[in-house]
């Protein structure tokens, strides 16, 4: 293998492929030898490999920082596809965007691996779980480190596969198996559009390499750019669970909770955001596409926020909140605030992974209970979980100076800077909803009287470790982007997105920050009034507004519309084809043909004596015949 043979100028001390190699090794070894591992060793093995991947990513970062200011390091491994003029390399790319993503992925994944060792202890398929997790990390790293669209797509589909395997990890339970299938099929709709988009890119640019495509993207005509961008965006919508393809994510909570934390909160679902941000030159060539991205994002954010308020299941609540936050990220990307979107992505990875792990810890303490109606008052029994949760809650609600505040503030502010007032107001409404539903969940879970007879206990130390580290990251992650213009992260990402402009909207930065903090405080206040203060009998309130409650809980019936409008007719049509058309018409034709052939075969089968030696004699007869023909001919 010639590594980077055609790039002598770049002196990357460490080849990039090392990073995904670690989890791939782990996945292969664990898959091949899974049943031989005893105890928790396989978990440690997998965690160690992902940790090694994280460390090597840091080495890459240092390499990159110490480099000679190249915009990107590229390692070409080999030519992968060569069909006529269609040629794709397996090539990895390291630039600030990829590094941020890879660090987030491998870092969060390491913590969640360690957390899972205790969470999955005693599971009969313990080693297989870690094999899948490792495989997921491998594909995710391929996705973020890919240097062309096709390799990115490989990672994209790979993480989809792992998501399917992990959601359905407890496939003995029908809901889990169904949810896995649903996730796989629904995301496939978006992926098909993405694949078509890749083909379009090839047709238009004769290359799939990022450098080539993005360098020539500004040449695109507005119409072409719109189509191309929307095709890519459709893939992102499926993967990131945006309207209207969001229905799989709440169901995906049937998987083990660490999986929800890693795949369905911190990493895989953010791949859509990554794709939009990565392909921003294409999107920027079309004003329409950017507006659509922003609109879909903000509509999803508000819709999912409303749905989250109605959820009683703690994991479904977090799932809707993830959809909502992803909506914010798309909103930011649509507003052109790419580094803000990435910043929110990273911060969200920290606090949402932490919240999921906290939820897992609660479930662990309550023997699998997920219904918040049967929780309450847990803050005494589970102090560690409670305090880390509080950090995550406040961070997500947007209380300064936690990371969520800075990230979300920048996203919200981007609307104001663009001068789009309505978008800005909508974003503030979304923030308000975020604060409300998060506070509601907190008050229902940790405050008030205990509503279950169980004796809850706090998480074991290894699970606690992940909680604490992630909580610390959620608390202090704001340092990365104190300012949208020259914070650490925006400055680091500058080579990819270009320099950020000084804000020129109608409101100052300070006013914007004040507005969003005020919204957060108001949201928490509302939730406290209803769920925390004890002055309002919210249980009675639920039954009074049962209709609205049910609508919210069911995600405003989008799923039911799909079931009634798409799935049922499809099933009906299939039933007609299967039981009427196939049985009567096709089977009749085939059976008739079969009977005719059977009649002939009845005569012919007399030749088949079943004796090998007769057959051998026939072969010899043939040989002698052919040879005599040849001898006579010459």
């Amino acid at each position, binding site marked *: 293998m010639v590594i980077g043979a055609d790039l002598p100028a770049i002196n990357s001390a460490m080849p990039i492929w090392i990073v995904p190699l670690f989890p791939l090794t782990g996945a292969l070894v664990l898959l091949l030898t899974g049943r031989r591992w005893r105890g928790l060793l396989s978990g440690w093995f997998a965690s160690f490999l992902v940790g090694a991947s994280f460390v090597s990513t840091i080495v890459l970062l240092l390499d990159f920082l110490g480099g000679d200011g190249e915009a990107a390091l590229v390692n070409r491994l080999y030519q992968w596809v060569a069909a006529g003029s269609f040629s794709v390399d397996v090539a990895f790319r390291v630039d600030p965007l990829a590094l941020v993503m890879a660090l987030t992925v491998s870092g969060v994944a390491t913590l969640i691996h360690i957390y899972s060792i205790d969470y999955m202890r005693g599971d009969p398929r313990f080693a297989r779980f870690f094999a899948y997790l490792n495989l997921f990390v491998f594909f995710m790293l391929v996705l973020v480190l890919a240097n062309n669209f096709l390799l990115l797509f490989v990672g994209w589909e790979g993480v989809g596969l792992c998501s399917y395997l992990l959601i359905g990890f407890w496939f003995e339970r029908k809901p889990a198996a169904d949810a896995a299938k649903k996730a796989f099929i629904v995301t496939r709709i978006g992926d098909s559009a993405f694949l078509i988009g890749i083909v379009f890119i090839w047709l238009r640019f004769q290359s799939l390499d990022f450098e080539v495509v993005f360098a020539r993207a500004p040449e695109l005509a507005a119409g072409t750019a719109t189509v191309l961008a929307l095709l890519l965006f459709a893939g992102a919508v499926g993967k990131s669970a945006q309207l209207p393809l969001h229905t799989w994510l709440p169901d995906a909570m049937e998987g083990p909770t660490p999986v929800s934390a890693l795949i369905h909160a911190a990493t895989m679902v953010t791949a859509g955001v990554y794709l939009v941000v990565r392909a921003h030159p294409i999107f920027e060539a079309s004003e329409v596409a950017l507006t659509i991205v922003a609109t879909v994002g903000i509509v999803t954010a508000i819709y999912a926020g409303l749905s989250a308020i109605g959820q009683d299941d703690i994991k479904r609540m977090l799932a809707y909140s993830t959809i909502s936050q992803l909506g914010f990220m798309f909103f930011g990307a649509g507003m052109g605030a790419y580094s803000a979107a990435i910043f929110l992505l990273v911060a969200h990875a920290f606090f949402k992974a932490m919240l999921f792990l906290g939820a897992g810890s609660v479930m662990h303490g309550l023997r699998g209970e997920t219904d918040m109606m049967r929780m309450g008052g847990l803050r005494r029994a589970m102090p560690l979980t409670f305090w880390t949760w509080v950090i995550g809650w406040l961070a997500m609600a947007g209380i300064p100076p936690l990371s969520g505040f800075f990230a979300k503030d920048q996203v919200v502010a981007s609307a104001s800077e663009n001068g789009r007032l309505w978008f800005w107001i909508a974003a503030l409404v979304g923030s308000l909803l975020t604060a409300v539903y998060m506070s509601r969940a907190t008050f229902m879970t940790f405050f008030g009287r205990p509503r279950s007879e169980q004796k809850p206990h706090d998480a074991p130390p290894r699970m606690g470790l992940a909680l604490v580290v992630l909580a610390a990251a959620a608390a202090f992650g704001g340092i990365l982007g104190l300012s949208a213009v020259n914070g650490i992260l925006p400055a680091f990402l500058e080579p990819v997105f270009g320099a950020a402009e000084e804000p020129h909207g109608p409101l100052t930065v300070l006013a914007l920050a004040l507005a969003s903090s005020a919204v957060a405080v108001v949201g928490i206040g509302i939730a406290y009034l209803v769920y925390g203060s004890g002055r309002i009998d919210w249980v009675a309130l639920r039954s009074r507004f049962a209709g609205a409650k049910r609508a919210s809980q069911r995600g405003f019936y989008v799923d039911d519309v799909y079931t009634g409008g798409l799935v049922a007719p499809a099933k009906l049509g299939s039933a007609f084809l299967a039981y009427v058309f196939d049985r009567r018409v096709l089977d009749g034709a085939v059976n008739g043909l079969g009977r005719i052939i059977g009649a002939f075969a009845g005569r012919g*089968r*007399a030749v*088949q*004596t*079943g*004796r*090998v*030696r007769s057959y*051998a*004699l026939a072969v*010899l007869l043939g040989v002698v015949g052919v040879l005599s023909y040849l001898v006579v001919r010459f």
Partner: protein
Amino acid sequence: MRTPISFFLLLSAVLFTLGTLGVLLRRNALVIFMSIELQLNAVNLALVAFSRQWGNLNGQVLAFFSMVVAAAEVVVGLAIIVSLYRKRRSADVDEASLLRW
């Protein structure tokens, strides 16, 4: 060397035919299998003779490959005969005619 190559080829033909006859006339699966080995060897002889005739080593290489393949074939074939024998208590190929109509 003064022996004409055609001698070797004719010997090869005779041996090959004897192997063929063994396959056709015997009923013991093991003996049939040995006859197949005889055929393979006859072909190997022809290959080596060709190699000598044309003054290059391709024939010998081919014979070498044929030996390797024969080794693999014998291993699998004997395993099949063993399990056939376990099932039917007999190594007679005429009795193993389950695929007959």
